[in-house]
């Protein structure tokens, strides 16, 4: 029997007023991947950060021991702990956009830890960095070393991060939601790479995730955390196939899956509500010549009928967000036309069009004004309805808040709500004026799995009830499959495949759709 690489026993963590982690026991063996799953606030990230004693200010470890290859990290002096961090325990964080220093060249950041922990010359460190970058399949490593982080996509930055962490061949990798911010294809690329590098170096991997489908695909063992307790643990596949605890079952049920009953498509008769023809959007070249003009949307045509739920799916940079914005008139098309109930739309969009369309944005934390009460935020779109009194507007807003499950929340401010609750407010705000068309741009991707499932159901119910047409934009194939009757698959600014949602994902014709279906983790 191999000894554990990491052995946590009786770990308790508390902030000044709350117990965050309650006597957790965990073990990860060499070469094994342990997924620590749970919702936001379950204590999974705190557990991970406690391993390297990097808890946020005001949060401290109350008791328990953390042994790494036999050394107890909890009794180590600061100076010794610094020799463990980076060298023996590598950390990969969630946000690839903020975990690299924007003011430092990638080369310097890559070799920083290497030079810190090992006696190497700069050129030796550079050589090792280049070899490692080639290992993570990055071409033109030399040029990359001189570049700054902002020049790369999230997936690329996360690969760079993996390279920098694995450069030191640590015994343990802590990956805290490493792919949550990435689309399905980039997610798969990064995690496959992590598994490969982990296996090759024999490192133990502690994978923190809220996505059980990922745990199912990548983890050897699984521990499910809720409210600071580990509620269930064991072999990943065994636990997920037959969850013993109600909480685990709830999480498993929240994973979107192919719906058994296909979402019924409304009859496409009469004139379409929305008609897009040859729509292209070009972003002009920026400043230096290094950023050439980019065709974000390339000759896109489709029709949407009243009451349709259309899913637009694609990776980051596929043009799906630009499509939504171009229809709403938030970006100017370079060519092509958009017709709404038969009328061609001009730029800027007419007030009449804007009165009948609404948008739901991805990040509920920044799409609500932090200083406005919920009822006022929701009542806002009604300000142009001259025949409504202020009281009537508030009544309508309150009624809709109740409809989205936030009855009595009207007087609260956004910061008093969770992410899921905020997204409900955003949905209420979009629907209060009874629009004909709603563009929802990644409305669930900033949320936990269980919350995502609730929001999807809410959106689907409201859509069926009110009969608006919904353009649901997402990188999450599973979510699209669950709610949409028809899907557009986008890649490189073009629509590469379109048709009945259930059909095209069951039998993808285009190779990009196939890659997307394959990359999407599921049960």
């Amino acid at each position, binding site marked *: 029997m191999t000894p554990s690489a990491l052995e946590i026993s009786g770990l308790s963590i508390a902030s000044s007023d709350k117990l965050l982690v309650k006597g957790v026991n965990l073990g990860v063996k060499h070469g094994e991947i342990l997924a620590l799953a749970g919702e936001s606030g379950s204590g999974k990230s705190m557990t991970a950060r406690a391993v390297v004693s990097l808890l946020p200010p005001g949060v401290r470890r109350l008791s328990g021991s953390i042994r790494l290859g036999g050394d107890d990290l909890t009794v180590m002096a600061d100076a010794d702990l610094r020799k463990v961090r980076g060298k023996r325990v590598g950390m990969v964080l969630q946000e690839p956009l903020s975990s*690299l220093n924007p003011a430092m060249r990638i080369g310097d950041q890559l070799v920083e830890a290497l030079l810190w922990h090992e006696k190497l010359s700069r050129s030796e460190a550079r050589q090792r960095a280049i070899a490692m970058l080639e290992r993570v399949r990055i071409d033109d490593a030399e040029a990359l070393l001189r570049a700054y982080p902002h020049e790369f996509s999230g997936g690329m930055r996360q690969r760079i991060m993996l390279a920098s962490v694995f450069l030191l061949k640590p015994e343990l990798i802590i990956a805290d939601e490493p792919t949550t911010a990435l689309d399905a294809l980039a997610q798969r690329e990064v995690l496959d790479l992590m598994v490969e590098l982990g296996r090759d170096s024999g490192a133990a991997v502690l994978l923190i995730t809220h996505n059980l489908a990922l745990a199912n695909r990548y983890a050897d063992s699984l521990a499910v955390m809720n409210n600071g307790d580990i509620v269930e643990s064991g072999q990943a596949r065994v636990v997920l196939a037959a969850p013993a605890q109600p909480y685990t079952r709830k999480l498993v049920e929240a994973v979107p899956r192919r719906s058994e009953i296909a979402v019924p498509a409304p009859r496409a008769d009469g004139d379409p509500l929305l008609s897009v023809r040859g729509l292209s959007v070009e972003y002009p070249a920026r400043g230096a010549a290094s950023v050439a003009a980019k065709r974000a949307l390339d000759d896109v045509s489709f029709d949407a009928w009243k009451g349709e739920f259309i899913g637009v799916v694609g990776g980051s940079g596929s043009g799906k967000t630009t499509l939504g914005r171009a229809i709403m008139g938030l970006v100017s098309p370079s060519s092509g036309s958009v017709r709404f109930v038969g009328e061609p739309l001009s730029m800027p969009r007419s007030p009449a069009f804007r009165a009948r369309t609404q948008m739901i944005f991805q990040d509920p934390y920044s799409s609500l004004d932090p200083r406005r009460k919920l009822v006022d935020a929701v009542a806002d779109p009604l300000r142009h309805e001259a025949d409504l009194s202020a009281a009537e507007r508030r009544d309508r807003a309150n009624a809709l808040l109740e409809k989205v499950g936030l009855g009595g929340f009207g007087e609260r401010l956004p910061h008093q709500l969770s992410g899921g609750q905020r997204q409900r407010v955003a949905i209420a705000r979009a629907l209060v004026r009874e629009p004909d068309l709603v563009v929802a741009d990644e409305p669930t991707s900033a949320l936990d799995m269980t919350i995502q499932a609730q929001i999807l159901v809410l959106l689907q119910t409201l859509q069926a009830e009110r009969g608006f047409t919904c353009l649901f934009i997402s990188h999450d194939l599973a979510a699209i499959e669950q709610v949409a009757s028809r899907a557009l698959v986008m890649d490189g600014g073009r629509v590469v495949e379109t048709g009945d949602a259930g059909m095209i994902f069951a039998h993808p014709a285009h190779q990009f759709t196939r890659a997307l279906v394959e990359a999407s983790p599921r049960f």
Partner: protein
Amino acid sequence: MLSYLAKRVLAAIPTLLLVGVAVFVLVRLVPGDPAQVMLGDSADEESLAAAHAAMGLDKPIFTQFTIWATNALQGDLGASLMTDESVGTLVLDRFAVSAPIVLIAVALATIVAVLLGLWAALHQGKAADLAIVTGATVLLSIPTFWLGLMLLLVFGLKLGWLPVVGYVPFSEDAHEAIRFLVLPSIALALVEAGVLTRMMRASAVDVLRLDYVLHAHAKGLDDDTVLARHVFPNAFAPTLTLVGLILGNLLGGIAVIETVFTLPGLGRLMVDAVLARDYPVIQACLLFTASIYIVVNLVVDLIYPVFDPRIVNR
């Protein structure tokens, strides 16, 4: 990078033109007459008219502007109506007095602000933070002239370490010149350090929350290295913009400090010229101030990409 520079320089030209026109017109809108100031209240109509003709003020305003603008473009800003000295030399001489004080003060203030701001941010909410924030607020609330007078009182009169009245140019006696610059520089630095410290602390607090700082710790770096390599460069960028604004502002004249410390600087020149309605001097001072402002902010814009490389592509 070169096109970035060229764009910034070209953008400065219309600004300077506008300043030129505005200055010329506004100066003449102010009630008062330079001839009257020079000759006194008892002057009769004839001598006033003669003085006007000598000063070129009898011509229509448009002609006056054309003459002034043509000469200014050739580098000749005219002569003082009062002393007949060349305005260009006058402005540069006086600038040579104010500039060292301002440069020393701003450099000092920046260093203090960076150190205290980072320290306060690191100890957010603790006693050290509270003390620094309170101190900074007190400093930026104190009027400069009062602080200057107190420094004079303590170090000049009570302790007698430094001279109280007067000024010696660098060219005559460098050692003595420095002794005259110490107190005004410190007075100015203390006030500006207040604003800059608060700015530095605020942006450092924001940066400390970011993932790359956590990641730098997770690499095993010690606290000082994390601070120097990862926190400081990113937190300093907003402060640098403020340093540029302050520097431009102060180089244009520190009349209050110059008055308190009896220094013949640019600020005093401007105040005296305004009181005497000495049009060419006022015009030259304001034009010079505007140019300094533009140059300083250009330099800041050029340094900025070091701390935030994203800016070049925007």
